[in-house]
């Protein structure tokens, strides 16, 4: 039994004489303790899907099970108990505007039955986590966008939930603060074994944080899998689209023009790195073997879950025959490689 199980969940919205199918027959199983990501274009249905997990959105059809219990048919009382174990970070923060930052968090603590006397200390601890300890007495309208989001994060963590649902929890944060939050979540996930479901459009965050992920397109989950696999071998057009944006495949036209002006004509090749490839002295080895020169044009190689992944665009110059040989050598050694243009 998975901790979160969605079975054929659909959500329909009626809007101005048409029906929007925000979530369309989605089935997912999320295991206890994992960090599960959901990505997709704006309007794909990510928020709607995650809202079904804690019952804020009733599915039009389908089942939502938490720890084996179908929450769509729970009594209000039971649903409350389930929710106390689920933290939710809202895309648009949803802070109580007439209550201070501290009171906003105290509310969640009280809801979770945290003893009143110990709340001030806990609030301070939570706000310190998100770097806002000195803002405890400020009202939300005295905070910047990112600060509000951080209060939302602190509130969601207040009751040490078993499941944390994050809807774009870092989208209003700069990279540095976002990384701190991501590390914080990773740490919490490891230490407390909580399950995290995380929506993001920040691929940087996705690759650093997720264990597994689902790709949504127009209400449908078009692909699920390990994060590394999806980044390395996206199958669906949507996954390819999102991943390619991170791996910056296209070569700017200015570069092509510059190359065209070079004395020696060559060939552009795009290498795709997977797994351990990066540890082999591939480029120098082939260059030496085939006697070509290789420049690195652009690329992105990094590690997802300690395995290399990336794309490298190289420019091979030398004798026409040598270039052919080199290309053949690359083709035989890296996962995929594609000749570009010419």
């Amino acid at each position, binding site marked *: 039994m998975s901790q979160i199980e969605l079975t054929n969940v659909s959500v329909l919205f009626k809007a101005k004489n048409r029906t929007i199918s925000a979530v369309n027959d989605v089935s997912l199983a999320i295991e206890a303790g994992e960090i599960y990501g959901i990505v997709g274009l704006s309007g794909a249905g990510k928020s709607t899907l995650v809202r079904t997990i*804690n019952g*804020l959105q009733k599915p039009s059809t389908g089942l939502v099970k938490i720890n084996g219990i179908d929450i769509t048919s729970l009594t*209000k009382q039971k649903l*409350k*108990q*389930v*929710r*106390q*174990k*689920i933290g*939710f970070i*809202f895309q*648009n923060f*949803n*802070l*109580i*505007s*007439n*209550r201070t930052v501290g*009171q906003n968090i105290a*509310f*969640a603590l*009280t*809801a*979770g039955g945290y003893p009143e006397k110990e709340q001030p200390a806990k609030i301070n601890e939570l706000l310190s986590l998100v770097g806002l300890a000195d803002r405890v007495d400020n*009202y*939300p*309208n005295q905070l910047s966008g990112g600060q509000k989001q951080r209060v939302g994060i602190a*509130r969601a963590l*207040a*009751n040490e939930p078993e499941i944390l649902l994050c809807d774009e929890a870092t989208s209003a944060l700069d990279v540095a603060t976002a990384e701190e939050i991501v590390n914080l979540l990773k740490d919490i996930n490891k230490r407390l074994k909580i399950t995290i479901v995380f929506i993001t459009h920040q691929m940087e965050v996705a690759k650093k944080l997720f264990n597994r992920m689902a790709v949504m397109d127009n209400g449908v989950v078009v692909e699920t899998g390990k994060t590394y696999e999806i980044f390395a071998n996206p199958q669906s057009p949507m996954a390819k689209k999102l991943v390619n944006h991170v791996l910056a495949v296209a070569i700017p036209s200015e570069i092509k023009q510059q190359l065209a002006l070079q004395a020696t004509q060559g060939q552009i090749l795009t290498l795709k790195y997977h797994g351990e490839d990066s540890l082999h002295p591939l480029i120098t080895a082939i260059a030496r073997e085939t006697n070509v020169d290789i420049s690195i044009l652009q690329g992105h190689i990094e590690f997802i879950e300690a395995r290399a992944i990336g794309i490298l665009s190289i420019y091979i110059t030398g004798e026409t025959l040598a270039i052919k040989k080199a290309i053949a050598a690359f083709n035989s050694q890296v996962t995929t490689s594609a000749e570009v243009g010419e």
Partner: protein
Amino acid sequence: MTETLHILQENLGQALWETFEMVLVSSIIGIIFGTLIGLALYYYSNQLFTPRPVLNSIVGFIINATRSLPFLILMVVLIPFAKLIAGDPYTPMGGAVSLSVAAVPFFARIAQSAFAEVNQGVIEAGQATGAGFWLIFQDVLFPEALPALIRGIILTIISLIGYSAMVGTIGAGGVGNLAIQYGYNRYETGVLISVIVILVVIVQIIQWIGDRLANHYTRS
């Protein structure tokens, strides 16, 4: 002039006290029960909670029925009830009974409106924590609706001061009655003007306090 002063000296203190008594009691009752009923109307009609159209219609109907009666009729119809509650219906306490009965549905509608204006997302955030309704009420709905509630309370208190003149004329006393008995029925214009000035000052103070409180509790 001396006549006016004499009448005022003789009656004003007590009349003020009577008005104060009537308005205070009925405001408190109106605000407490009005808030509860307004909350019920909000609760039973809101998709985020448990919409109960039938129950909601019934509560709404009772409220409307009470509001339908012109106060002039209501207070007469309620004299036996006032007697039951307050012993003597022709006292400020007796007057407070019909004022309260009028204040409750009036404020219920104001409270309902104030709650209905609260952002749904914030309430959802409250529900997402697993908080029960009363906690959400206390820590989300109430603070978010507070400025509108305060403005509504002011509206109610000032309306009640006006209505208290009416129960005054059937025996409950108060400054409104003083103005009518002497100023209107007996052409003691001095008394009428004095009472009006006093009322203007009182209302001004109430409004001023209310505005300050409402602004103080508005943080968005």
